């Protein structure tokens, strides 16, 4: 059974701080997505990484896919209250049913002004 472990589960920081969220697995993924979900809303796709070692930046957010394509990280620089939400990673895996993703349970981030 493929699993994606996210850490930490909860993170509460002050505005302006930096943070990193991790997504780890023992399985190899063909691609990995990061989503952000606000309370009462559906997840919104932030980024997809597909190549081992790939780094993508989205304003103050930096996403990295591990060289072996088993793990990923999300780094936020100078966090703002608008970054508050649940961050989910999800992996597409070889041999899986068409289009299916494995989701982590998420990291709940709270950024206080």
């Amino acid at each position: 059974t493929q699993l994606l472990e996210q850490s930490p589960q909860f993170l509460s920081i002050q505005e302006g701080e930096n943070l990193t969220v991790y997504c780890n697995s023992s399985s190899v993924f063909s691609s990995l997505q990061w989503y952000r979900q606000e309370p009462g809303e559906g997840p919104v796709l932030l980024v997809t990484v597909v190549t081992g070692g790939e780094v993508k930046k989205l304003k103050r957010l930096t996403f990295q896919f591990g060289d072996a394509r088993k793990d990923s990280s999300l780094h936020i620089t100078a966090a703002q209250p608008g970054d508050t939400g649940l961050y989910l990673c999800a992996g597409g895996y070889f041999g899986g049913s068409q289009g299916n993703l494995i989701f982590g349970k998420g990291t709940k981030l709270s950024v206080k002004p």
Partner: protein
Amino acid sequence: DVKVTQSSRYLVKRTGEKVFLECVQDMDHENMFWYRQDPGLGLRLIYFSYDVKMKEKGDIPEGYSVSREKKERFSLILESASTNQTSMYLCASSLGGTDLYEQYFGPGTRLTVT
């Protein structure tokens, strides 16, 4: 932009009622999915469909059925609602081919069964 809409944002039903949740996507996506999301359990896949009239069971299909008569529409049916089906229900769609794994979600339906 991909748009996935769900028929209701909030729904309150009684135990034993038949419940229909509808999802529509406007981007001609082949794949559609139904999840439920519960605290501590994350997203769990109920059913998915990769073509019209095709359906596949996900991880927790018991107590649910689905229907996909048109490409853009995927319905989730709770045959006889029970209190343990109180949850947030999320619909998603994805394009086949090279973007196979990017899923786009609707806003969710918060279902309460009393």
